[in-house]
């Protein structure tokens, strides 16, 4: 049984207008995504801004209420649960937020921040709790003494580690990482990413990794879903998507990954021009008359693409 199944998940926001503020239209932030996660893998959700990748993550954990579709975690349909029962699942699904500056309460000391989930779900004595916090801080590579500091006394990377420590406090099975490194500078990005991979091996974690950085996603993920306008354009293993993109949108996205070798620069530029031309020519073929994305079709055993 897979750890998490998302079936035809939709999140629509109403657009209200007119005198009575009636619903006149909807924004289809997420418009029917389906995915399956096995334990221990890292699933990458990639797309441009506004493609609905963050909203998908938030809907899975329950911060947004889905308009339609279901999220099944270990065989339990999450969005049919009552609030109270659903709370139990927060233990197993945790989230690392995009902005380390706003995701930690500025008025709280580190020990209170990390202790929050522990106090909510586990009955521990003061000493036991303190030990656990120090353990977690060591796990994310911070000194145990930092438990008495405020978040503003840490650098961006350290703050993001605090966010990870908090997410790990309950030993969850699934962590949704919503652009965990996009607010950090590049040297720190690598640090946090490698650290996340390390603890994944150590603690047998499953990640949903939301990002717009294709390089980062390739480094982190086994499987990748490319999102466009709230739908999947292509889904498959990292090799499928990077080496054999089927949809022109994916092709263009992959072509945009920067190459570090200046010798290839001319070649890369030409290649990008070519892909752009192909994209412009075939745009009408790959999207329906409203610019929407087609349903996914199977390309190989692991590879799906929204082909006409």
């Amino acid at each position, binding site marked *: 049984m897979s750890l998490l199944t998302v079936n035809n998940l939709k999140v629509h926001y109403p657009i209200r207008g007119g005198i009575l503020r009636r619903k006149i239209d909807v924004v289809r932030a997420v418009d029917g995504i389906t995915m399956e996660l096995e334990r221990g893998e890292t699933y990458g959700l990639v797309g441009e801004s506004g493609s609905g990748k963050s909203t998908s993550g938030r809907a899975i*954990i*329950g*911060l947004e209420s889905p308009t339609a579709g279901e999220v099944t975690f270990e065989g339990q349909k999450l969005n049919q649960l009552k609030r109270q029962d659903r*709370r139990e699942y*927060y*233990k197993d*699904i*945790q*989230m690392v*937020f*995009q*902005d380390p500056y*706003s*995701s*930690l*309460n*500025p*008025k*709280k*000391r580190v020990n209170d921040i990390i202790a*929050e*989930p522990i106090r*909510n*779900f586990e009955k521990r004595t003061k000493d036991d709790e303190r030990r656990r916090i120090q353990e977690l801080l060591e796990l994310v590579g911070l000194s145990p*003494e930092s438990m*008495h*500091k*405020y978040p503003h*006394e840490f650098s961006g990377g350290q703050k993001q580690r605090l*966010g990870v420590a*908090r997410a790990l406090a309950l030993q969850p099975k699934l962590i949704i990482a919503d652009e965990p490194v996009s607010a950090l500078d590049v040297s720190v990005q690598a640090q946090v990413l490698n650290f996340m991979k390390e603890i994944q091996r150590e603690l047998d974690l499953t990640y949903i990794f939301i990002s717009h950085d294709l390089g980062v996603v390739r480094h982190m993920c086994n499987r990748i879903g490319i999102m466009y306008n709230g739908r999947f354009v292509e889904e498959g293993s990292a090799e499928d998507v990077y080496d054999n993109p089927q949809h022109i949108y994916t092709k263009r996205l992959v072509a945009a990954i920067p190459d570090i070798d200046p010798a290839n620069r001319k070649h890369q530029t030409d290649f990008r021009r070519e892909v752009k031309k192909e994209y412009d020519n075939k745009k009408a073929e790959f999207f329906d008359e409203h610019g929407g994305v087609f349903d996914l079709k199977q390309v190989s055993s692991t590879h799906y693409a929204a082909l006409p």
Partner: protein
Amino acid sequence: MEQSQQAETMADPQDMDAGKSPPGWRILLTEVLRDKVALFSLLLVVSIMMIVYLVPLFLSQEEIVRVDLFAIHEPPSSEFWLGTDYGGRDVFGQLIIGTRNSLTVGIGVTAVSGMIGIILGVVAGYFGNTVDNIIMRIVDFFFVLPTLLIVIVFIVIVPQYTVWSFIFIMSMFLWMGIARIIRSKALRERELDYIKASRTLGSSHLKIIFTQLMPNLSSIIIVTMTLNLAANIGIESGLSFLGFGFPEETPSLGTLISYATNPTTLEERWWIWVPASILILVLMLSINNVGQALRRAADAKQRRG
């Protein structure tokens, strides 16, 4: 300053808490201590409060408001430190008790209206959407009511008219401003990820409001309440001056000042109304000074310390 802090840290290296950074209230305190005007104002307000709340323990209000026809309009003397009014009542005693009554009203109104305003503001801001809409329409409704008129009517029809009923009726019309300020700040805070993170960590709404949201509103609450206190003392005096405050048996700063509506008193018997006027000025200015210092402390960009 830095040296003394280091010395403190070195004094007890065993203490785990030595490396703690200053908590929020310490920042507020430091800011007030740094600002000499605010510090002086704070001391002044505290000492005035001490005097007016402690001295009446030895003075009886009935004794002071008893009419004494043989001592009408006496100028200041050793017997009557600030003279007497047209009923032969000791002005100094009235000043002490009056200040106490005015302060009690000010503090009471600030506390009660603050409670209502904070609760509604936080609830509106935190839950947003429909809840916010309903509460804000109630606020709008209270804003358009002719406050002064209703207060005056209330005062006229209520038979037993005490400090407490006055606090109650004033608070009913003074909580909206606070609710709006708190709500706007709460609306901004709730969009931040730490509130959302709290939800994914399994905290209930009530817990999030009290342990996550409120600490981040604390500085704005303290500042608003302090500045409101100064204004509320003024409101009581204003109403009393107009004759809709307390009756003469319950002296207040406003009743003392309203004696000055009599032209002879205004011109010749300064001891009746000047001390009360100065006291009210000093109180409001001082509380305002402290409030301004607190406001600076709440905003790291303006901080001096």
